[in-house]
């Protein structure tokens, strides 16, 4: 499953207006929290359009917006909630960007970034001239099947309302995320999703297409607002590093400590969906009659990662098994076909990561049971460090067990983890794979 973040980036402002089918005219008055529409009042949502701000990250050099998303005011003093990824280019290079808003009426102004949560993809901004009206978070539990109304400004065409049912929490995810069956589109990121009584239940965050959309639960946004912090821009990278460390520590430790349920792979006792957030896929080339090498493979991946920038992500957990057997080749030709290299599963670049450094060695041979059972095990470990987040590393591990005409490879790729946990998880992975 490949989620796309619903942020509209420069040149992407092509579009698709989503008609808010339920949206009919009704004026709302009052100057505190926005009045709630009744469950059966289909005309009550017009007032909510006014509550959606378009959030723009502007690059002064280009004199134009470089990304747009949506946001909504959550307090009388002008706090605005949006997604972290809407303002990520500002966080990664504050000196080259500024954040602006545009209200429903076209009024523009600047916004100040106060706090963010890269794990749940949220950010809190301060409005320079707060509106008297704002949205309140819901304190009720969201029932499965309950209708949710998501608001946002898709691709800069204008504020839109998308209605769809809540389908509960996404399976195969470590973090809680609401599965919302409505079409969220680029630009709607950070917009509010409200229930029938107009209370915020979630924040639009991503889509996998075809009405498969995802919301950050309101609780995470509320926690961030309640923390009431204001991070200095000099501390942005340190803050991101600290959030990732805090999130990764229990997430990885659980994998190290837990028993991994046995799953068969190519006749061996191995493992697969080692926790609910892992999903595995397998394939073989059995149907190819002209194959020189018979291969069976399986790959498993955790459902979460941390988006930091268009060129940087972190926190991926991935592993795979490959079993190769020579069909027509001799042992020299077979081993020549093996190219032991690995590549990162998270995107990064020169500014953010060092190059991989690797250590390769052969493992002490277990006694071969028969004369013709000669084999060896080669292990490759490669590490690179995050340049702006000291103490966090990406690691690649490969274990190859080769006898004359067969090769078994197990590969582990983990991102943004501290060194003690990398060593422990690698160790566990090697022991479970052997």
């Amino acid at each position, binding site marked *: 499953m490949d989620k796309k973040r619903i942020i509209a980036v420069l040149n992407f402002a092509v579009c698709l207006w989503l008609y808010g089918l339920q949206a009919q005219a009704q004026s709302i008055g009052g100057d505190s929290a926005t009045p709630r529409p009744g469950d059966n009042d289909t005309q009550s949502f017009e007032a909510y359009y006014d509550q959606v701000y378009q959030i723009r990250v502007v690059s002064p050099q280009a004199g134009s917006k470089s990304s747009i998303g949506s946001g909504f005011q959550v307090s009388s003093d002008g706090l605005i909630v949006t997604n972290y990824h809407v303002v990520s280019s500002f966080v990664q290079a504050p000196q080259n960007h500024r954040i602006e808003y545009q209200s429903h009426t076209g009024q523009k102004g600047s916004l100040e970034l106060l706090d963010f949560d890269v794990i749940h993809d949220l950010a809190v901004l301060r409005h320079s001239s707060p509106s008297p009206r704002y949205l309140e978070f819901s304190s009720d539990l969201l029932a499965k099947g309950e209708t949710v109304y998501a608001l946002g400004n898709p691709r800069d065409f204008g504020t839109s309302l998308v209605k769809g049912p809540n389908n509960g929490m996404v399976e195969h995810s470590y973090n809680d995320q609401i599965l919302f069956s409505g079409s969220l589109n680029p630009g709607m990121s950070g917009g509010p999703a409200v229930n029938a009584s107009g209370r915020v239940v979630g924040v639009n965050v991503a889509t996998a297409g075809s009405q498969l959309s995802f919301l950050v639960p309101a609780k995470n946004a509320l926690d961030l607002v309640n923390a009431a912090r204001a991070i200095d821009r000099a501390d942005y990278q340190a803050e991101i590093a600290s959030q990732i460390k805090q999130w990764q520590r229990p997430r990885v430790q659980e994998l190290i400590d837990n028993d991994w349920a046995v799953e068969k792979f190519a006749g061996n006792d191995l493992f697969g969906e080692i926790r609910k957030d892992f999903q595995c896929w397998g394939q073989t080339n059995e149907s190819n009659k002209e194959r*020189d090498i018979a291969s069976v493979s399986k790959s498993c991946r955790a459902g979460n990662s941390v988006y930091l920038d268009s060129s940087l992500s972190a926190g991926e957990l991935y592993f795979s098994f490959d079993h190769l057997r020579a069909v*027509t*080749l*001799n*042992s*020299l*030709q*077979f*081993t*020549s*076909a*093996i*190219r*032991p*290299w*690995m*590549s*990162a599963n998270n*995107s*990064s*670049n*020169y*500014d953010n*990561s*060092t*190059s*991989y*450094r*690797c*250590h*390769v*060695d*052969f*493992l*002490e*041979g277990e006694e071969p049971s028969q004369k013709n059972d*000669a*084999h*060896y*095990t*080669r*292990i*490759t*470990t*490669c*590490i690179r*460090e995050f*340049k702006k987040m000291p103490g966090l*590393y990406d690691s*690649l591990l490969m274990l*190859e067990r*080769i*006898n*004359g005409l067969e090769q078994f490879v197990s590969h582990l790729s983990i991102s943004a983890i501290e*060194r003690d946990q990398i*060593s422990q998880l*690698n*160790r566990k992975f*090697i*022991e479970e794979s052997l």
Partner: protein
Amino acid sequence: MRSLVAQITDKDGVRIQRFNLDQQGISIGRSWNSDIIIQDRFVDAEHLHLSLSDDGKLLLEDLSSTNGSQLNGRSLRATQKNYALESDVRLGDTLIRFFDADVSVAPAALRSKWFVLAERFSSWPSLLMLTIVAAFVHTIVNELRTTEPVQLDVLLVSAAGVLALILVWSLVLGFIAKLIRGESNARALWVLACLGVIVANVFTIAILVLRFNLQDQVVGQWVSVLCFAAFAVWLLVGTFSYISSMSAKRKWLVSLLVVISAYGLIRSDDLLREPHQSWRSFTKTEAATLPPALLLRQGVSLDEYQNAAEDLFDAKPE
């Protein structure tokens, strides 16, 4: 009286005869009484007469022979002609040249070991054998390194390819040698090419096994570079020996310069690259992978492995 040397070339080869010449002269012919006996059925019993004039010049006279004689391609009649040393005298099927025994000979030519090498394969059977071995080694090594099943036509194409390469090499360089050195040495160049093919292929396999056991990409790369550079220098020095008349020192110097500049040219792209241009999101480790039988090094325990891998975290960022 002068001391002279006659160099006689006939169908049996070259023979040398030293003699003294005075005013009385010497006779050259097929008769057993001749001073210089020429065994050639087209030569008369008394054919030529060589004498010394009063003022010390050499005089040559044809004694009205049946088939006549030639001096430097010109017919020699009964009259006495002046003979200049080292001129060609032809009588019948025989060629004679006279040298002054008192003139010192040229210093001995340096005999390069490269010619000794080539002459080890001077007989046709040994040359053929060498060629077959070269083609065989090349084909086998090529086949070992492919990842396709063995096919006869591929083997034949590979063997034919290397033979064509050796042929073209010998002809082209032979032609250049003829221009520069005056002799083609095509056979020696052929021997060198065959040896080169064998050495290069043996190197390839040896380096592969070494690098597989080293499992260190940086060191492995240097091993390859140094081995093949040494091979290239060797091949160039050999080639220069056959196609030019350079001194040994010069040959080595030129070869070394050629190889170093060629390597510099190939690597210049990498060396001039900025650090951010060589950043990669994938790993670079030793690609060499071989069957268990060729693993010669001892493995380590998992604990030892992990301890060594810990150093990766302490690496200074580049």
